[in-house]
């Protein structure tokens, strides 16, 4: 972990998926510190939402990545986004998005970096015909 890298976004989702993704980002870029994992495991709706709110307050991040577009972490993030101006949400997150984000987040605004990461993630999904 690079101690000079400040938190830039929350990665929220099911089970160990957020921590696993961040571990992969760290392995590839050394910038895992830019991302904060949040798992919905064993949490109800209110606790997921309050957990995300708490992380935003503590780390002053303006971007949330979530896994499933209709998953409980995404629904909670949408509720937080409703009363948090400037908060960007990217759903369907994968490794390609996060790697792009940790490099862009220092050069772009949070919203632009989130948008750029979403485009990178979309472009990384390819069906390769045999």
């Amino acid at each position, binding site marked *: 972990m690079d101690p000079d890298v400040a938190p830039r976004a929350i990665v929220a989702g099911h089970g160990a998926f957020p921590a696993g993704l961040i571990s992969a980002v760290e392995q590839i870029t050394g910038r895992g510190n830019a991302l904060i994992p949040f798992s919905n495991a*064993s949490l109800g*709706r209110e606790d997921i939402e309050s957990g995300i709110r708490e992380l935003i307050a503590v780390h002053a991040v303006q971007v949330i990545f979530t896994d*499933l577009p209709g998953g*409980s972490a995404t*629904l909670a993030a*949408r509720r937080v986004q409703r009363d948090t101006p400037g908060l960007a949400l990217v759903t369907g997150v994968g490794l390609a998005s996060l790697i792009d984000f940790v490099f862009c987040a220092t050069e772009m605004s949070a919203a632009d970096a989130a948008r750029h990461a979403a485009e990178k993630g979309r472009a990384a999904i390819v069906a390769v015909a045999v």
Partner: protein
Amino acid sequence: MPVALYRIDDRLIHGQVVVGWGQPLNLGFIVLIDDVVAESEWEQELYRLGVPPNMEVYFVSTADAARDIDKYMADRRTGMILTGSVEAMLTLARTAVRPITAVNVGGIHHREDRTQKLRYVFLNESEEQALRDMAELGIVVTAQDLPSATAHSLEALLRGCAS
């Protein structure tokens, strides 16, 4: 096809409901019984986000559910009746015109007044009693988060069996 699943899940419509159960059951509709969501267009749009276009969602209040449950039970498509609380399901069981034979406890998560029973089920005393009341109505109550998981009997659930 009767309603395939009566589920209690405090996350309401989410991945396990739509994908975990929805795909193997080939659900045609979900009836979400929740007074707050039934009153809020914004919340309803939120929950529709995760539902595929071929799956219809009805948002109804507890009072309307008791009135309309017969209509959903008679629907020819495969359906799921979903409540966010044990109390709402018990109310439905007591008022439904046709008897509910089985209830699935799919997810009741941590809260300060609750004790953990399973990885995905936490209950307070009132909720435990409500589940017992369901059993006294002849309903088979089991805890099971996903179709591939073990279904725990009510006795095992209340005992707090390992998961």
